[in-house]
């Protein structure tokens, strides 16, 4: 089985792009399953089920979604193998722009949209900067100039990635993406695989349920903003 991690800011077009790529792969009788990771709720499973793609949803609830991802992706792979998928796709919304579900040696795709503003590629962390493929969506509604600037900024932020433009509605560009998904490596499990980048160094009092604001209640791994006027 092959595994691909797809991430990107909320509503950037991940599901649309995945569905279009699946359409291409199904013509070659590929068996595909999807895992959707989200925080509170998602309706993506309905979209996948509508086109008969087996899907499992993982909601992190009050846990950090990326920590939740790492602790569950191994089981997801086991499920995929049991179901005899040719390809398992994990879709996750990158919520704090800091983390990334990307794993070393596993194809990593980041989906961003042109509407997000030209500084977005700069602002997104490892999710974009360490991806192998950057998919840019919604090019159909902005000008050619904005598209070109956006591509350039994405290239600057991650010069190694292959940048593709996919229209999540018409599917233009999805065939090229599907070929890249097909070309990726086979895995039997995720033992010994590593994340491409560390998760945030957490564990402060607030991670442990503290709700009270104030110096006396802040404990553990803290970082303070620098206000020169206070010192």
């Amino acid at each position, binding site marked *: 089985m092959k595994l691909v991690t797809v991430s990107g800011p909320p509503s950037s077009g991940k599901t649309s792009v995945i569905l279009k790529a699946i359409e291409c792969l199904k*013509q070659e009788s590929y068996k595909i399953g999807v895992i959707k990771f989200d925080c509170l709720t998602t309706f993506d499973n309905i979209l996948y089920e509508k086109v008969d793609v087996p899907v499992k949803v993982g909601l992190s609830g009050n846990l950090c979604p990326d920590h939740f991802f790492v602790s569950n992706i191994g089981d997801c792979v086991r499920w995929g193998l049991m179901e005899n998928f040719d390809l398992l796709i994990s879709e996750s919304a990158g919520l704090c722009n*800091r983390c990334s579900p990307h794993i070393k040696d596993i194809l990593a795709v980041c989906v961003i949209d*042109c*509407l997000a*503003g*030209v500084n977005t*590629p*700069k602002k997104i*962390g*490892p999710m974009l*900067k*360490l991806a192998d493929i950057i998919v840019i969506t919604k*090019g*159909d*509604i*902005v*000008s*050619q*100039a*904005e*598209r*070109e*600037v956006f*591509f*350039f*900024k*994405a*290239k*600057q*932020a*991650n*010069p*190694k990635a*292959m*940048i*593709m*433009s996919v229209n999540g509605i*018409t*599917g*233009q*560009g999805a*065939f*090229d993406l599907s*070929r890249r998904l097909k070309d990726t490596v086979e895995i039997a499990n995720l033992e010994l695989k590593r994340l491409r*980048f*560390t998760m945030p*160094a957490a564990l402060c009092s607030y991670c442990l349920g503290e709700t009270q604001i104030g110096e006396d209640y802040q404990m553990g791994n803290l970082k303070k903003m620098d206000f020169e006027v206070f010192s």
Partner: protein
Amino acid sequence: MSIPALTIPLREMILKYPYLEDFFISLGLKDYHVDLSCAEYVDQLSDGQIEDLGMDREQLISNYTEYFQKMAEIALRTTERVRSITIIGGRDKTGQAENLSFTMKTGDIICVVGPTGSGKSRLLADIECLAQRDTPTGRQILINDSVPNEDKRFTVEHKLIAQLSQNMNFIMDLTVQEFITMHAESRMIENVEETVQSVIVCANELAGEKFSLDTPVTSLSGGQSRALMIADTALLSSSPIVLIDEIENAGVDREKSLELLVKEEKIVLMSTHDPILALMGHKRMVIKNGGISQIVETCAQERSNLMLLQQFDGTMIRLRNMIRSGEKIDFDIKNLFGL
């Protein structure tokens, strides 16, 4: 290339390659104008800083070298100029062979006609990904009469098609001048200011109503936006092919627009069913059942019909302007149309 880039002091590198500065800015780094080499600079960053960057030291250095190479490639414009694109036929949805080899050259205006869903987007996708008999249509695309290198297929610098359609809008919060400057800078051209000026002059020649440098792009009228998009694509886009999805018949001079694109040596593909635009094309590609069913060449009779249609069009524009300026159209207009 990577070794000297890593050992030369950053201050010197940035002086020589100003675009390197953007690499550090985009990572939110400061104090990079130093007499340290990139490797030394990265070494002395604190673990906290590295943590915030979202990359470890090794990844940072490898991104830096890659960035340097990619930007140098763009700035040097080492890429070969596209003079022609050839489509070698595959098959349509019913499996019927297209049986054709069609070459489009710079300066050609080619209309793409056929009902929605007939296969236009598949054709564009084939061109865009430089299909090599490996897409569902089985078509092959040649550039300058030969098979393109595999590494050309997916890179930003080699994007083949610039697209212009009525659904496109400007969304950036910038003035016309700032906006075009930003685009010019991303192309890493040398004479930014001059090029920006000529884009704006050009756009104003195409637009029905003039606009100034300091107009926010989002407050341009439909015609003005279209004019700016066309001028910008003609003069600043790196793509050799321009795909136009209709040009509305208001607020922008369609004939001049096409002339400009041809003058700038673009291959113009126009998806349209407007008889005036279609007859302005040199050839029409007829799409049916997901395949190219025929190529129609614009004939002499069609060209003279075009002149007549343009006269009617001119009259309609005059009538529109009368309405705009508050006049009445209460006279016999039969003569205007030679009826």
